[in-house]
């Protein structure tokens, strides 16, 4: 299907299915129940799942295939956001031109930064990308304020020109981004008993784009280009003496992953039309690294899993407070209850980053292949028990 082998096609279909039914899958608990706080089927959160999924898929094309660890990828996301918001300000509230410009701008930006950074490899490359990203952040925050809005960020205003739509702007409200009349914030709620499922147009728009991005990444992984990138990670010396020039390959990978980041930034601005410099800060770059590692570097599905996992945990864990904890452990004797709550408390709510840091360290130490490797190990464990399957997962190329 679509030029994919059976295995990849089924992977794509599974992801498509999950994404399509996400409003159901992420809202398994009835409204008002104690477990409802674990629901994640809100438009806002689901949009973030897929948008960061795109970001991580793109990052994985660079880091997963070539092994070049960029610590400045958030710069491209930020550039994409700014470009998209400018499109909304100048041209129209239609998201298509905004997203196209976001991708192109981020790609051009990545071409310049990549051309310079890729003259070095290893740790030097990481530090160069970090330096470029921090530089962009500093510039966006200060000197470039006329373009970036500085500290307050870039926002829409009533008197923006929006040359393609003069009529709609007269209502007196700042218009919202849409796609040919359909607004991104449009939602349809379905009530089934005590369950409420929300279907949001913005989410589905992002989801479709994410599936396309995912499909393209599968094609890249399976292409001669992808094979060359893996060869670069494996042995650049041999590649050089085999008549291949690694640099244009890595540059192409860098630009492609920069464009993915720009796409994510453009979508982010399309869902909520503002852009701020903090999106380019190096912790934001670190976050996409975390997502990719957590899910599984160099695997197809890993980055999507990692992005979903981190954004889900962020949302849920940071919402838990001590009252909720006391509620959970109410069955324990009072003293013990307090002790347990005190022990867990640093890791929840505002302590979410602590949990994240610990999880991340554990993954790097014990499970360098991320969740995908963990899953494979589990599958092997159970698979071997069920039947002596001669085709063990380890002999296959990393999926």
């Amino acid at each position, binding site marked *: 299907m679509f030029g994919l082998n059976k295995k990849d096609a089924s992977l794509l279909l599974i992801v498509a299915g999950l994404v399509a039914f996400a409003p159901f899958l992420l809202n398994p608990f009835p409204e008002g129940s104690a477990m409802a706080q674990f629901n994640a089927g809100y438009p806002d959160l689901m949009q973030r799942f897929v948008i960061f999924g795109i970001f991580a898929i793109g990052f994985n094309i660079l880091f997963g295939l070539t092994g070049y660890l960029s610590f400045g990828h958030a710069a491209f996301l930020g550039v994409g956001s700014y470009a998209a918001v400018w499109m909304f300000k100048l041209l129209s509230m239609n998201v298509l031109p905004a997203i196209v410009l976001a991708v192109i701008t981020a790609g051009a930006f990545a071409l310049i930064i990549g051309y310079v950074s890729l003259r070095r490899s290893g740790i030097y490359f990481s530090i160069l990308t970090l330096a470029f990203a921090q530089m962009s952040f500093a510039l966006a925050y200060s000197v470039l304020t006329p373009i970036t809005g500085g500290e307050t960020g870039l926002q829409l205003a009533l008197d923006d020109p929006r040359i393609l739509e003069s009529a709609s702007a007269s209502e007196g409200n700042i218009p919202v981004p849409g796609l040919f009349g359909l607004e991104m914030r449009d939602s349809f709620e379905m009530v089934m008993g005590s369950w409420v499922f929300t279907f949001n147009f913005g989410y589905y728009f992002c989801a479709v784009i994410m599936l396309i991005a995912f499909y393209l990444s599968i094609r890249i992984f399976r292409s001669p280009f992808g094979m060359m990138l893996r060869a670069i990670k494996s*042995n650049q010396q041999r590649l*050089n003496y085999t008549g291949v020039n690694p640099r244009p390959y890595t540059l192409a990978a860098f630009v492609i992953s920069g464009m993915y980041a720009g796409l994510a930034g453009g979508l982010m601005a399309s869902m909520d039309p503002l852009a701020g410099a903090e999106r380019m800060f190096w912790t934001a770059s670190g976050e996409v690294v975390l997502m990719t590692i957590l899910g599984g570097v160099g695997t197809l599905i890993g980055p999507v899993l990692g992005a979903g996992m981190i954004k889900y945990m962020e949302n849920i864990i940071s919402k838990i407070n001590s009252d909720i904890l006391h509620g959970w452990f109410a069955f324990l004797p009072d003293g013990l209850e307090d002790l347990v709550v005190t022990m867990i408390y640093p890791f929840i709510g505002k302590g979410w980053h602590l949990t994240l840091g610990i999880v991340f360290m554990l993954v790097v130490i014990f499970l360098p292949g991320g969740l995908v490797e963990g899953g494979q190990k589990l599958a092997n464990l159970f698979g071997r028990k069920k039947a002596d399957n001669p085709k063990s997962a380890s002999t296959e190329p990393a999926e």
Partner: protein
Amino acid sequence: MGILEVKDVNKRFGGLQALGKVNLSVAENSCHAIIGPNGAGKSTLLNCLVGKLIPDTGSVMFDGQSVLGRTPFEINQMGISRVFQTPEIFGDLTVMENMLIPCFARRDGSFALHGIRSVISEAELRDQAESMLEEVNMIDKRDMHSASMSRGDKRRLEMAMCLVQNPKLLLLDEPTAGMARADTNNTIDLLKEIKEKRNITIAIIEHDMHVVFSLAERITVLAQGTPLVEDTPENIKGHPKVKEAYLGEAA
């Protein structure tokens, strides 16, 4: 006029004269061995041929064109393939993928952006890779993870990767270093077979006299960065200068 012409090559590292006035001519379709004691400059010379080092003075002509100032991948594209002392392969890739990369490099040149086409659909290149694997008796290992193979197999794979490019000149840097006698003999047989089947020039740097005398048609003896003698194996065997500089030491 040989396919490879090295003229008056000098190379210094700080105070050390690694190569001094090296002249070498490798005739087309011959097997030319370069021998010499440790530190004679064999590896430096080889690195000057493949673009890893640039000689201070002198010229290196391959097939009528200068290789100086070209990068390793450009020199490979001219038709020189190199086998390393310790096998250099793509350890994270399967044997088949290892074979496909030189096939792509030969067909597409040093860079081509086939980002959407699938590797599986490249039937012609796969056939090439497979028949080469058959030739070196590795077809049954085609889907193996190449890092997990034995050193002998890695060496064979590396050789196959070089040969599938149909190079005009194959450079071998101590191809049997660290190998058991049986593996060494296999390698010799493989090289002889390759030599018979193809129009290929082989330049080999080797310590093992058994390998050198089984393969080489001409031998250059290098000592202290300068060619001592160049002659046929028969003459080299009895040459007093060589005995003094090399064989004497080895015995």
